[in-house]
């Protein structure tokens, strides 16, 4: 919490039962901080996600940077759940390795997560349900009978429902959050429903806020005010929402999908929103149908979207090959989860990169983009639509569980500049060749008159320039080259990514997708320790941008960091591609497959073996370990990956 890293908190330790009389210290002066990681740990039915989301949105409204991380249990009926929110007055790059402030609702929450609390951090626990080991002097203990007080505040009828909002009140007090804004947010969220719900929420919040927590802590906190120069208003949403709204901004008006975690909420937003824009999103009978419907929509002149997670993308691959062959624009979203097969449905992995680039029979060029942050989910959709239209090609957008489920605040996009007019171009053409060998195919939709009377046929059989089948070896060679050459043209059209940190030096970390935050945070921390290190993040993965070959010589080591398996030959999926493309033997690979996002410390430990830049905190009693997949750790995975999902 804040910097310096050791804020020297002392607290009155209070045992769960005893109500020690303490002097009134409500006049505690808040200490200024600029960064705090707050983790709420309980069960999913406790509304942890709701309370966390309020914090995130409040931070967004207060122009604080914010990033969240959460686990959702794969079982609907409950099970352990956490929500971590990191609020900062500066740039927040990752959700934070360690919590400064841990709220534990149950004994299991305490056991599973105390290992994530940093030394000197505050454990706020429900003394009705949790008995912490008070002899462990590393932490500050604040016990509050949360369950009892909530029941009391709400008059017993609501039982302990509302604990989450009570805790929100406590946190608001401790961190001097804007009480009025929070109440307004609650009214927005619960308003429209039964009025008693809003009232109950406000009662719970007020009770939490009024609790004399100042008697237990010696300090309260306050985020430093920041003035964003000319900054735009902040909006707060998760990655799936950003993706869906990005598609809307990009002029995508039609699409089709089939539900699967963690893609479903993208299609839910689209199904709900598209009719407002005159469009349709179809829930199809399966992924074979949904990709085919989307291709039909795109063929008809409206660039369309389909999406899924790994299992569904596997089903779509034959049709995607057709779109590649027939040169139809199309957007395919893959919100990746752990695989193969049903895999880890609610965990994160980046193991579908090769599937996105190569997944099809035959040589079937397509474009692959990957979103780096929640905000980038919005902009990557716009880039995907631009490319799909201009190059008449299927375009993959890779996202993943961690982007899909976390909430970030970011600058409101300038929609007036961004929004695209999506109407099909039905102007009559004098003549039209669907597959000209010397040009990039421009799709002409049905309804457009072709005045010379020769109409185009979109074909999955190898074809001539008019789309008619041919078995000519020469034509197959020419057409294969034509389809691939447009990707080479595209490579000329995308900028070389900028390097973060040192532009030359000892180490270059290369990443793609949601590892952006932890990789950049790792570079920041290593530079503070004097390392000459930079980060290169790829949003365009296939084709790769030009100019990377000029970057490699500037560094002694190139380490690709990604969340997938090192594979038979010892390199992760992006590392394999970069090594094949550049024949650069300097390229190393750091991978992992524990289904969890990279921690900054983990990256640094792997990149700089032997040196540790992360603060070394003994983690006795930590049930969940993040590093490595050694057998003794794998068994703990069960506790964060509820079993029994299909």
């Amino acid at each position, binding site marked *: 919490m804040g910097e310096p890293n050791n804020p020297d908190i002392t607290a009155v330790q209070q045992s769960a039962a005893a109500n020690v009389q303490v002097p009134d210290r409500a006049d505690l002066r808040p200490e200024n901080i600029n960064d705090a990681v707050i983790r709420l740990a309980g069960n999913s039915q406790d509304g942890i996600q709701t309370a966390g989301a309020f914090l995130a*949105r409040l931070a967004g*409204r207060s122009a604080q940077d914010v990033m969240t991380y959460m686990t959702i249990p794969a079982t609907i009926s409950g099970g352990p759940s956490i929500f971590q929110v990191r609020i900062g007055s500066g740039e927040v790059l990752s959700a934070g390795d360690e919590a400064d402030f841990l709220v534990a609702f149950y004994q299991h929450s305490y056991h599973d997560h105390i290992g994530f609390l940093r030394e000197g951090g505050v454990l706020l626990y429900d003394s009705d349900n949790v008995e912490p080991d008070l002899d462990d002097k590393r932490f500050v203990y604040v016990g509050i009978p949360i369950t009892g007080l909530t029941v009391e505040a709400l008059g017993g009828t609501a039982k302990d429902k509302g604990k989450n909002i009570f805790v929100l009140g406590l946190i608001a007090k401790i961190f001097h959050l804007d009480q009025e804004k929070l109440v307004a947010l609650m009214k927005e969220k619960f308003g429209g429903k039964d009025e008693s719900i809003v009232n109950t929420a406000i009662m719970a919040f007020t009770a939490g806020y009024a609790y004399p927590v100042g008697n237990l802590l010696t300090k309260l906190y306050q985020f430093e005010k920041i003035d964003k120069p000319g900054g735009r*208003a*902040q*909006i*707060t949403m998760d990655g799936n929402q950003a993706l869906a*709204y990005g598609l809307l*901004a990009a002029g995508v*008006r*039609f699409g*089709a999908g089939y539900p699967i975690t963690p893609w479903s909420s993208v299609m839910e937003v689209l199904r709900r929103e598209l*009719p*407002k*824009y*005159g*469009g*349709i999103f*179809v829930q*199809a*009978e*399966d992924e*074979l*149908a949904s990709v*085919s*419907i989307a291709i*039909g*929509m795109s*063929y*008809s*002149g*409206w660039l*369309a979207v389909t999406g899924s997670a790994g299992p569904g993308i596997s089903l779509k691959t034959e*049709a995607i090959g*057709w779109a590649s062959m*027939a040169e139809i624009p199309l957007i395919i979203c893959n919100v990746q989860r752990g695989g193969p097969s049903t895999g880890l449905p609610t965990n994160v992995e980046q193991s579908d990169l090769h599937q996105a680039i190569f997944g099809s029979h035959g040589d079937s060029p397509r474009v692959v983009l990957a979103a780096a942050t929640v905000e980038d989910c919005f902009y990557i959709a716009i880039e995907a639509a631009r490319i799909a239209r201009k190059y008449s090609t299927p375009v993959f957008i890779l996202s993943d569980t961690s982007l899909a489920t976390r909430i970030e605040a970011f600058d*409101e996009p300038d*929609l007036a500049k961004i*929004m695209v007019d999506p*109407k*099909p171009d*039905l*102007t*009559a053409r004098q003549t039209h060749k669907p597959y000209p060998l010397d040009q990039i195919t421009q799709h002409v*939709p*049905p*309804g457009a*008159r*072709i*005045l010379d*009377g*020769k*109409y*185009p*046929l*979109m*074909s*999955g*059989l190898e074809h001539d320039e008019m789309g*008619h*089948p041919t078995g000519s070896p020469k034509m197959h060679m020419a057409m294969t080259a034509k389809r691939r050459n447009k990707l080479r043209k595209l490579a000329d059209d995308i900028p070389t990514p900028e390097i973060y940190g040192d532009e030359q030096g000892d180490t270059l970390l290369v990443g793609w997708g949601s590892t952006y935050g932890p990789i950049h945070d790792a570079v920041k921390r290593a530079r503070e320790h004097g390392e000459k290190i930079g980060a290169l993040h790829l949003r365009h993965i296939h084709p790769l941008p030009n100019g990377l070959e000029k970057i490699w010589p500037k560094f002694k080591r190139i380490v690709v960091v990604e969340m997938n398996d090192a594979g038979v030959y010892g390199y992760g999926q992006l590392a394999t591609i970069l090594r094949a493309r550049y024949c650069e033997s300097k390229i190393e690979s750091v991978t992992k497959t524990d289904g969890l996002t990279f921690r900054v410390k983990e990256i640094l430990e792997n990149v700089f073996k032997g040196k540790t830049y992360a603060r070394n905190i003994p983690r006795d009693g930590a049930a969940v370990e993040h590093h490595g997949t050694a057998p003794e750790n794998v068994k703990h995975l069960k506790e964060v990956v509820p079993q029994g999902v299909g």
Partner: protein
Amino acid sequence: MSDETKPNGSGDTSSVAAAVSAADAGGTPATTIEIPREKLTKKAITADHPTWCPGCGDFAVLASFYKVLEKRNLDHEKIVTLAGIGCSSRFPYFVNGHGAHFIHGRAVPLASGISLARPDLNVFLFGGDGDGFSIGGNHLNHGARKNVNLVYFIMDNFVYGLTKKQTSPTSPIGFKSKTDPTGAIDQPVNPMKQLVSAGATFIARTHATQVKHMMEMIERAFDHQGFSVIECLSECVEFYPDVFDPADPRKGGSFELIQEKKWDNTPEDELRHDVTDELAAYKLAQLPFPGVFGVFYQSDRPTKNALEKKWIETTRAKTGNASDLELLQKTFDRMK
């Protein structure tokens, strides 16, 4: 069939405003240019010479389709022919018009996407029994249930033609194929029953040697709003010759037509078939091979196209017909 394009009538040279607008598709109209339009002729819609074996039943289907297009004088650019994979699915190559030759079994969803996004088009879909009832069987059920507006013509030859004589989902028990050398053992699909229970709203059966009947069925399917399916017995002379002779009068068979009710209150009418009666259609479908021909079932259940359109209209009205920019901005304002 198409939402907007009612048949242009039979005037010879009509000068129609070329649809240079996306208005039908939900957009705002662009400039309208008058480009003279010739009457649609067979010549205009004929493309490559079919690659089918001489004598294949599918030739007659193609000829009937040309005739219907000519007769209805559709706007050339609004004719869309689509297909999956199979001998019969080669169809789009032989029609000069917008079209697509898709992948095996998935042409129903492809066509659904086109029909939903562009209700101004006339969507015609062609395919075989394997394409439609086997690999695409589930799509057939769901296209029917959703009642997407399109015409689907299935050339049923009781065999896999393109892949050279394997058992198809409509092959009768005992049919000797390369995959059932001692005779097929699996119960075949009954297309009429399946389509009735799946909820298709126009279901007909015809025979490729009965050109007049076939044309009548295509026209009625075209005039119907909804998921219109025609099963056409179309002989594969190469791999299952003579199988449909029992329904061909010229080969000594009998082509028995369904007598539809005329609602004329006569005693004869009592015995005639009510096309809106699902159970009656089911009973007709039970008749032993070669069965009867004509319209088995027809109902005017709302199409998915109409239901989605209604949803769009009510939702748009609720937003006060706000512009796209206003809509998204409003959403973002709520996320601040």
